[in-house]
């Protein structure tokens, strides 16, 4: 059965955003070219580049690196870096989000209870990267109203 994951951002309860993702299983892989200033891909690796998501602080864009349909890395291509707060977010929040992505993947789990995150831009861009290989393409797209 082909399955699809979508994420929708709402302000229910005004809580912070959750990172929750799942790769699309029955989908044709698609390699996206390596952007500049990120590590080169090794043989057998594929990169999926997310859309640049505009946030109130500036654009956020991520790239997912996979090997054999397993996420092995997430590169932050763009994030806001103009203010001290932005830099703190870059140094603290993004590594944490990347860690969560990898932990969730390696534990072979479907979902995480109890983890909420503020970084809608990260999630949105990550989701769009994963959507790159969704057989359902635009139907699995993100509805972001943050």
């Amino acid at each position, binding site marked *: 059965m082909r399955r*699809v994951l979508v994420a929708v951002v709402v302000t229910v309860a005004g809580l912070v955003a959750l990172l929750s993702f799942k790769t699309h299983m029955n989908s044709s892989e698609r390699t996206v070219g390596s952007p500049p200033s990120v590590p080169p891909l090794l043989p057998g690796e594929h990169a999926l580049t997310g859309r640049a998501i505009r946030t109130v602080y500036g654009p956020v864009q991520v790239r997912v690196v996979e090997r054999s349909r397993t996420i092995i890395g997430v590169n932050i291509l763009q994030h806001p870096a103009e203010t001290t707060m932005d830099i703190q977010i870059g140094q603290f929040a993004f590594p944490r989000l990347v860690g969560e992505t990898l932990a969730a993947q390696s534990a072979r789990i*479907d979902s995480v209870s109890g983890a909420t995150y503020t970084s809608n831009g990260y999630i949105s861009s990550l989701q769009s990267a994963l959507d790159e290989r969704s057989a359902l393409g635009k139907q699995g797209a993100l509805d972001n109203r943050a």
Partner: protein
Amino acid sequence: MGTVVSFDVPAAAVVGGSLEAAVRWLHWVDRIFSPYRPDSDVSLLAAAEVTVDGCAPEVAEVISACTAVRLCSGGYFTAAPGGVFDPSGYVKGWAVERAAAILSAAGSTSHLVNGGGDVQCVGGRPRSALSAAGASGSSAGSAGSSSGLPGEEPWRVGIADPFHRGGLALVIEAADSAVATSGTAERGAHIIDPHRGHPAAGLASLTVVGPSLALADAYATAAFAMGPARARDWTESLPGYEAYAITENGDTWQTAGFAPHIAPA
């Protein structure tokens, strides 16, 4: 600021439009219940600009459900945690549970909806999806959380480790169950003990597993506010719901019926 709600659904739900209906429902809930929207029913009610009769009927439903949990928790759950009407502590789990029910009503027997870390599972996950992931090991047929149909196995839901961001404290197997976690890990001390008016102390994370996400979420919030000693007795007394707690010191305890929910390592 918002909550991300993610859906894991069969493709038929996309084609048939029930996923779209579930997403429409969440946006509707947001319009009616968000305390961050000045024109929401909840905001207008909190400001005494309307009465309950002037709100969507679901507002009365939520108020009555909050009252029931307040009474059964000895007042540790309240729809006015900061003294102002704000039923968010109930609404998120309730809205996610109902989004899952919309998919069920349209015929899906296997889906998972996660709203801000509160997870409602329906049925199990298709077995083919796991093998496609290329992972080793098997959790098939493990005790406790039997999935209904052959070709399915329980959903695997990780509980975030409150002390190691990005890590998991435990993995739960859930079929036809909800998993809700209250904790300090991501948002700091944000759960208020309504009896003292201070942030609750003593627990780092408390997870409740049971059939309804609305109740599991509200129970987790109430138990967290109680602190470790009272929470343990109270969660043990809840029929159909089991709890797993991690204290501020890193100790853990669980209710008598929780063990079968734990995924084999």
